[in-house]
C-alpha cells in the first residue's frame, strides 16, 4: 500500500464574528485556540468577520481590572506565528483601518493593531478550502 502525504495534525481556522466587550466570542475563541496549541494542533489562521473585527482595534481600552482581549490575542498570534486577518469590508464599515486604507480614504488615523492584517473574504474561502476544521465563534443575538 502506498503512503499518502497527509499532515498528521489537523489544521484549524478560527472565525470570530462577535466583538469583545459585547460578546463572549473573542474570549471563548482565545481559550479554544490556546487549548489547540497546548494539545499540539495547528492553527492555520484567525479570521475576523462582522462585529468580530472590533477585536483588532488598537484603541480598545478596557479598565485596568478587565482583560484586554486585543493585547492577549496579539501576544498569542505573534508568539505562535498565526496569521490573523480582519475582513476588509467588515473593517472599513466599522472604522477599523490600517495605514493604507486610512490614506486611501483620507481618514485622520489608522487603528489596526499589530499581529492583524486586513484582507478580503477570499482569505476565508481559502480557509474553507484548505483547513481541516473551520470553527466559528459568534456573538449571538
Amino acid at each position, binding site marked *: 500500500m502506498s503512503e499518502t502525504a497527509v499532515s498528521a495534525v489537523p489544521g484549524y481556522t478560527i472565525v470570530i464574528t462577535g466583538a469583545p466587550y459585547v460578546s463572549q466570542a473573542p474570549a471563548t475563541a482565545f481559550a479554544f485556540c490556546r487549548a489547540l496549541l497546548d494539545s499540539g494542533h495547528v492553527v492555520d489562521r484567525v479570521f475576523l468577520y*462582522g462585529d468580530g473585527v472590533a477585536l483588532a482595534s488598537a484603541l480598545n481600552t478596557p479598565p485596568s481590572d478587565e482583560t484586554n482581549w486585543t493585547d492577549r490575542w496579539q501576544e498569542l498570534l505573534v508568539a505562535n506565528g498565526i496569521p490573523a486577518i480582519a475582513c476588509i*469590508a467588515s473593517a472599513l464599515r466599522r472604522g477599523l483601518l490600517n495605514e493604507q486604507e486610512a490614506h486611501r480614504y483620507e481618514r485622520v488615523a489608522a487603528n489596526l493593531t499589530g499581529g492583524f492584517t486586513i484582507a478580503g*473574504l*477570499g482569505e*476565508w*474561502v481559502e480557509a*474553507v478550502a484548505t483547513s481541516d476544521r473551520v470553527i466559528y465563534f459568534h456573538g449571538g443575538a
Partner: protein
Amino acid sequence: MSATQLIVIDTPPYGDWRGREALDMALSLAAFDRPVALLFRGEGVNWLRPGQEGSAISQKTVSRNLGAARMFGVAEVYADSLALERFAVNGPDPEAEAVVPNAAFYGDFSQVVQL
C-alpha cells in the same frame, strides 16, 4: 454529504447587518467556484418579500444584492416553507425552493454557517 457549504440567513433584511454579511460570504464562495447554497429561515424569509424599497430608510435594497447570487453562481437557494407561511411572504423569489429544513436537509451539507 456534498461538499456544499450552506449559508443560513435568519435575520430580517433591514435593521441587522448579519444577513448582508452572510450573503457576502455566499457570494465570495461562489466567486471562487466553491459550492454554496443559501437558506432563508425565520425572519430571514423577509429577504424574499417582493416590493422592497430600501431607499425609504436610506439603505440599499438588499433583495437586489440577493438577485446577484445567481449571477455569481449560487446554484441553490432555499426558504423554510413554514417561515414563508408565518411571515406571509407570498410570491417569493421563484428561484427559492421551499423546503422543510430538518436534520436530513442540513445533513446534506459539508458545513452550515449562520452568523
